[in-house]
């Protein structure tokens, strides 16, 4: 397999990885970016959500080679400079996590939905947030505060 080139959190990355390498394995095993979690093996839990060219995808369900040339953003790349991203800040303030396992995926999905709704000029109200979170499962079932966090971040983004 040829050299795979892409950008991860704004850094150019070049790696020689086998064809079957999943994006999540490239991130976690090869680049040691372990903020992206793996919670299932079926593409259902959303713990592995990252952004590829600005869109949320499940990194366990995408081949690394399929995103060659793309810009990938993980939870590690969200905060720019010193401060937290408004979505991270909102999860902190609203206690939007319990064990924290689902949190990276929740935050990446949260940012994606806020950006999409803003671009389309649509209102991201509570039912919309709940609908948008269909692909993110919280084993601690702390959805109440997750929804609140996203709602509060949406107002600040």
């Amino acid at each position, binding site marked *: *397999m040829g050299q795979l080139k892409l950008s991860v959190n704004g850094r150019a990355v070049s790696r020689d990885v*086998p*064809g*079957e390498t*999943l994006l999540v394995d490239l991130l976690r095993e090869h680049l040691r970016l372990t903020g992206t979690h793996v919670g299932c*093996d*079926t*593409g*259902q839990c*959303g713990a592995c*959500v990252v952004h*590829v060219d600005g*869109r*949320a*995808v*499940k990194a*366990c*369900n*995408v*081949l690394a*080679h*399929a995103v*060659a040339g793309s810009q990938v953003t993980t939870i590690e790349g969200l905060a720019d400079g010193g401060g937290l991203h408004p979505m991270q800040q909102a999860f902190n303030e609203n206690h939007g996590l319990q064990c924290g396992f689902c949190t990276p995926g929740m935050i990446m*999905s949260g940012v*994606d*939905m806020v950006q*999409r709704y803003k671009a*389309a000029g649509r209102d991201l109200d509570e039912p919309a947030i709940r609908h*948008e979170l*269909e*692909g*993110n499962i919280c084993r601690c079932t702390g959805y109440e505060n997750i929804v609140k966090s996203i709602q509060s971040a949406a107002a600040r983004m």
Partner: protein
Amino acid sequence: MYATNYHRPATIEEAVSLLTGNDEAKALSGGQTLLPTMRQRLAAPSDLVDLRGLPGMTGVSAGDGTLTVGAAVAHADVAGNADVLRLIPALAGLAGRIGDPAVRHMGTIGGSLANNDPAADYPAAALALGASIVTNSREIDAGDFFQGMFTTALEDGEIITAVRFPVPEKAAYAKFPNPASRYAMVGVFVARTSAGARVAVTGAGADGVFRHSAMETALDADWSPEALAGVATPADGLLSDIHGSAAYRAHLVGVMARRAVAAAG
């Protein structure tokens, strides 16, 4: 996952030549079905031929009473496309309720039709609207394309390049999602076309998507939810599993069909 070689061809011709003459090669689109299957070691292709972004397989175009969707168009892009929203809003609505946002960013219409999952949404739209499945070598009428659970008319190495939908007078899709997987427990797509009413049911048939001719006859006489009140759906040949019995699904078919006709107006 077993070892595999990844290919990104530049043209449809190159993709077809990589796939033909190699039994172990498989087309890859969004990977939202194929990659989980490979991870469970239920599939072990030696080579994956990525079709996303191939010229001739992207974009949506409207013309002459039809709407053509490139096979590699993602569900989210069908859901948000201005032409789809204007001409067949029921199709946009269907695409926007497949799985979840991250699945919709990757999964494609071509991959969904080629896979022909008995609980998938797109097969119902293709069959009810009388779509043509355009491949690298021919056009296949949706009525001939679906040949039973996970089985289609596609030959080895043949790839779907686009799907052409005749624009109906009105249409709607009603889905009762399985609360865990989001796939259809039962989904009914109804369309009123120049050739009459068409009703396609997904999620329920043991052989995959099917047309409900008794409902079509009833709707031809009177396009209204009430017209479906007395139309029976036999439970024979319907799926029965831990999620619902055949009788339960037969009942849901009636409920979803009435909701769809009401929504179509």
